[in-house]
């Protein structure tokens, strides 16, 4: 037997018992930051539609039957079952689902996936009339930590410094790294396209802290000092993301990223260091 055949056998035997976990699809979708929800107009019993068609019907019936027997057919044509799309941008996922249901729209998808989400966009827009069967799509993003206000305090830390002009990205996640507690959020420039961040911060405790430190960038990382603690800084990660990671204390690690695009607009390395220097533990 040739060595490559023996090796192939050994590899096959090594992974023979391995199967992908059954909930992988759910995990992938959950891990994906943004979710798109879809609603479809329900076939019947549209409250909004009933109100909308009531007026033309009344008008037609109040007129003398001068037009002859075409009136009934005409009435049917006027009786469009259109639904006026409600405005749900900014609402929590469950609230948006409730409002859209009340408007006669049907939700497709796992509702549990959006319980901690906030709706960021919708298509068609609020106020538009849609015929039956048209899908209304919502784009939502996770806000696992709720409304963080200016976003600077979360997961046991406070961010004292951020580059001017950034605002909280209204997005947050938890359980992002390892088995311990970990949290993350982003800060964006106003007007950034959906899902585009400028600065992201991850906080990790205990086992997760070890994991966060373990995932240090490999290439071009330089040792840096963050208020007396050893950290590592890299500008050579995938796509040019700038990142710094360090331990605030044993069992509490923080990683800050600056997106490649934003790093080009500012002095990425200097700003990264300033953000890191300004982070304190709150507990």
């Amino acid at each position, binding site marked *: 037997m040739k*060595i*490559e055949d023996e*090796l192939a056998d050994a590899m096959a*035997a*090594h992974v023979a018992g391995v199967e992908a976990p059954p909930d992988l*699809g759910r995990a*992938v979708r959950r891990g994906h930051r943004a979710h798109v929800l879809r609603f479809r107009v329900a076939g019947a019993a549209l409250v909004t539609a009933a109100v909308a068609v009531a007026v033309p019907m009344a008008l037609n019936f109040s007129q003398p039957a001068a037009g002859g027997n075409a009136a009934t057919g005409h009435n049917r044509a006027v009786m469009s079952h259109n639904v006026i799309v409600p405005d749900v941008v900014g609402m929590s996922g469950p609230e948006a689902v409730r409002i859209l249901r009340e408007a006669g729209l049907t939700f497709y998808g796992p509702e549990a996936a959006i319980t901690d989400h906030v709706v960021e966009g919708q298509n068609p827009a609020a106020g538009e009339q849609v015929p039956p069967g048209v899908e209304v799509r919502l784009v939502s993003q996770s806000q696992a930590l709720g409304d963080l206000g200016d976003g600077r305090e979360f997961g046991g830390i406070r961010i004292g410094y951020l580059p001017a002009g950034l605002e909280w990205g209204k997005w947050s996640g938890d359980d992002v790294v390892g088995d311990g507690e970990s949290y993350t959020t982003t800060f964006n420039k106003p007007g950034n396209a959906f899902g585009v961040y400028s600065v992201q911060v991850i906080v990790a405790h205990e086992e997760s802290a070890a994991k966060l430190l373990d*995932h*240090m960038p490999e290439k071009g990382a330089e040792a840096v000092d963050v208020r007396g603690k050893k950290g590592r800084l890299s500008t050579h990660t995938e796509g040019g993301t700038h990142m710094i990671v360090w331990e605030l204390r044993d069992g509490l690690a923080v990683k800050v990223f600056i997106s490649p695009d934003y790093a080009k607009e500012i002095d990425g390395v200097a700003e990264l260091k300033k953000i890191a220097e300004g982070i304190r533990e709150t507990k």
Partner: protein
Amino acid sequence: MMLMTDDDEAAFDEFLAARSTSLLRTAILVCGATRHDAEDLVQHALEKVYRHWPRIRHDNPEAYAKKTVVNAAISMARRRKIIREIAFARPPETAADSPDLDLRDTLIGELRRLPPKMRAVLVLRYWEDQSEESTAALLGCSLGSVKSQAARGLARIRANMIVTEELVR
């Protein structure tokens, strides 16, 4: 953010059902990490696939997913290299310290000792039975590099196996 249709979602589920086990197995072999870490890695790679799904689903999504998984596995293996080298540092002639060590375990042990990219070449070529051309495409390297890495990888394993056998005798 691309919008996913119901059809896209269903196709993604089908893709996962058909391919995720094979991707996970490849990840385990290439990164040499624990199954838990390999699952994390595959999940992250699949999130990337999911993000671009409407665009790539009609254009060989398996190759895209495999490329993402293999390259992430190589990166992970490189990050872990230092830790592993400390943990397993020993001269090659003591590779098999127990005569009872199963041949397959020894081979896997030798495979793990190879540099990550070399290991990836062997996994893709001999376990997945990929051609030299597609291995090169998946790893983003030249055909020549695949040929030489495969030959050197096998030669190293063979050399260590001979040493092992001599010790066992």
